[in-house]
């Protein structure tokens, strides 16, 4: 687990631009999966936090998009990584990403439709005023 977070710690503790540039150059030369995963994890955490804490349903939707994009990022990263590793079937990740985008678009369309229906009935889009799931 700590190994997993090591790149983050390294990144945060970098001192000086030079070292940072070195790192970037190194990263360009040697594709490193961990950084993408870190970004993805951050996006995911932000998304989850948004879903859990925000009251506005629109913002919750946006947070969900973040979560989905975190997943997309992972897909792409793994796809690229596997490609570099010589896998012949690396395109699958990209295809999945496209799928996720399409599904996300569809989901957003339906979700916003639900939001509008909800607003017409309840006159609110604040989720803490909506406890319909209880029934």
């Amino acid at each position, binding site marked *: 687990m*700590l*190994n997993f977070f090591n790149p983050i710690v390294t990144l945060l503790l970098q001192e000086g631009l030079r070292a940072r540039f070195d790192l970037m150059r190194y990263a360009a030369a040697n594709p490193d999966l961990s950084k993408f995963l870190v970004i993805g994890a951050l996006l995911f955490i932000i998304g989850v936090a948004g*879903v*859990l*804490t925000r009251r506005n349903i629109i913002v919750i939707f946006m947070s969900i998009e973040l979560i989905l994009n975190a997943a997309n990022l992972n897909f792409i990263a793994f796809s690229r990584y596997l490609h570099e590793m010589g896998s012949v079937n690396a395109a699958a990740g990209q295809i999945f990403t496209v799928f996720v985008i399409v599904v996300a678009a569809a989901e957003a369309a339906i979700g916003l439709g639900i939001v509008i229906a909800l607003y017409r009935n309840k006159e609110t889009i604040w*989720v803490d005023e*909506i406890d319909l*799931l209880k*029934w």
Partner: protein
Amino acid sequence: MQKYIWLVPLLPLIGAAINGLLGRKLRFSERLIGGIAVGSVALSFLISVAAVYSYGFGGHAEWPKPYVTSQDGFSFNWIPGGMVSINQGIQEHMAVEVHKKAEEQLAAMTPEERAQRPAILIGVAETPRFALLNIEWSYQLDPLSSIFMLIVTGVGLCIFVFATGYMHGEAGFYRFFAYMGLFMFAMLVLVMGSNFLMMFVGWEGVGLCSYLLIGYYFDRQEAANASRKAFITNRVGDFGFALAIFGIIAAFGSAQYTEVFEQAKSFPIELLGHWGILSWIALGLFVGACGKSAQLPLHVWLPDAMAGPTPVSALIHAATMVTAGLYMVTRTNVIFQHSQTMLLVVALVGAATAIFAATIGITQNDIKKVLAYSTVSQLGFMFMACGVGAFVIAIFHVMTHAFFKALMFLGAGSVIHGMHHEQDMRRMGGLKKYMPYTYWTFFAGWLAICGIIPFSGFWSKDEILWNAASTTYIPLGWIVWLVGTIAATCTAFYMTRLMAMTFWGKERFLAGAGGEADEAHASAYDKGLAPHDAALPSAGDRPRHEPGEHVGPVHEDVAHHVVTHGHAHEDGGHGHGAHVPHESPPSMWVPLAVLAVLAVIGGFVGIGPAFRPVTGSEHPGGRLHIVNWLNPIIWNPLTREFNTAEGGHEAPATEAEHTELVAGEFVQAPYRDTGFNLAHSVNNATHNHLATEWIFIIISLIVAGTGILLGFLFYVWRPQLAGIWAQRLRPLYNASYNKYWVDELYGLTITRRTMDVARGVFAFDSKLVDGIVNGLAWLSRQLSRIVGGVDKYLVDGLVNTVAAFIMRLMSPLFRAAQTGFTQNYALVMVLGLMVAVVIFFARDIITAFGK
């Protein structure tokens, strides 16, 4: 072209599938249905002709080698049977080995040593044998199957064309042609299959189609009963056939004809009274043949099968299906010829059937019944030929019989059609004037079946009788000949009677309506009911006649009828009986004409050896002569090999040739001494082989003439004589008229007894078995009442109390958890996810922190 013979059975099947599956749904017109059916059969026929031509006469002719499609691309491993143990016929297998080793040792000796006839000691151990049984679906083209292919598709084509006219107006038109196409498929599989199992498939298939077509008018009790009778009687035969197939596989480890016969041909011959494996197999096969070909104990279904439409009688119950037994016996002639006992049985059964059915035919009044008994009788002739060892001649008779009997059945159909579904010959007469085409074609068929000289029936029937008289295969050949000769006289007599009652003499059809007619419309009118089909207008498959509607050929002008023959309608009040007969449409008489031509000239492919002064050779015409064509499939007991292609060995060796062979080549006579032999006795008297043959030909012509003259005497010149003699021979007449009470006998001894057994078993079932079951049910009901009480009051009470208590206690807790806020649920999910992650990575976390 041989490559494409798999299309021959397939095309009628496709036609049948189209007609049967779509015909009703898409409301095909009669023209379309008929076109599909006739077209598919015609294509099959063309392919058959092309295939047989290229097989027998083409540039790369393979005749007489059997051509099996699996050797040329079309193969399909139908039943991968795996390893089978050959546990039957061990004695015979060992005998074959001993024989082979003895020959090897003899060959190794010098001539001097051999001349001393030394005793040879050979030890053969009984070793377990195995074979890899693989049954393929492949078609075989050989001399025998090619003849049957041509008969089935050729005669079938004529009958299909006829049926388009005859069945005109039936609402079940599509169904009829679907069944007929299916029948063609099954029959072609039967005759073209390359192994016994395919033959069995075809065998059962034709049985099924026969059942379906006899019961075509299934709403008539009589037809339904007849179809069941045919099916059940055939089951008896099929049982024997199936056992024989098991026996063949157990003895030879294969079902492929070529392999089985290759092994069987060197088996020792089983003489009279000796029951080896081949005799048992032959017995099973012959039981099957008896069922299918209506031989004596199992003949009862065929006359009843006339309840089907007449084209069915012509195709299935005269020309093709009933000859399947002959096909099978000839196909397995190796096996039959190995068993002298079974040859004798075949000959005697055939002779008995021939005389039995012929005598019944004399007194029947229904035109189709006469023809049915004639068919049974002719089939008896064919089996007679097989039994005396003249398999080729049997097939020759199958062929000529297919021509003239199909012709006569179709002619009878034409008469029935023209007489408006009247089948009783007592109400016919004088039809010559009204139905000229039918009359003249029927005339040709009559001459053919009576055996008048250039017509086809003569050649085959005479050869059968000659072979019976001169057989060296079995004893009692002279009895077979005598019985066959008497049966031939009867045949000529009852056929003349049929001609006289139908076509000649006084016109009796104006006298009255009805009669004991068999066809669908007429029988319903007899009972004074509405037509059978009008009784249930909702049933889709019936002709849509209204009660009282004119039921007759559609092309006829009803108004014209009423004007010209109004008096008939006045008393009858319905469309039957007193019609003036009319000639049938061209679709019906053209096939008749084609078959008539075949019935006249068809015999020339089998001109007998007695005509060698005229034709220049025993079997003139090379391969075109049926004996030369078929000889290679016939096993020769003298050489113990199949006949060579151009060998020209006369099927049963006469004694002179026989002794010559025995003397010349030290071959042991295969069937020993067979006792008194009529032909040889005559030969000894005349000292001239040719004269002997001619004596028998003249005898058979004389008996045919006698039969015809008697027929003329009784039914044309002195019609009152028939009644007088029927009075004088009352017991005989009754016996013949009532078909020797065989049906009654079977009813009494088998059917009733089976019913009694069934009733007994039913009583056992309903009293004892049901009693036990019901008693147990009663017991468990009582028990369940007790258990139910306990459950209801004790267990349920307990459960309810506990449940109520728990519910009261726990419900506030669970209710509180359900807040209804989305985010609460999401939070719980996230927490759960985190817990899951932690659990999943527990080991990693511990190591990481440990480090």
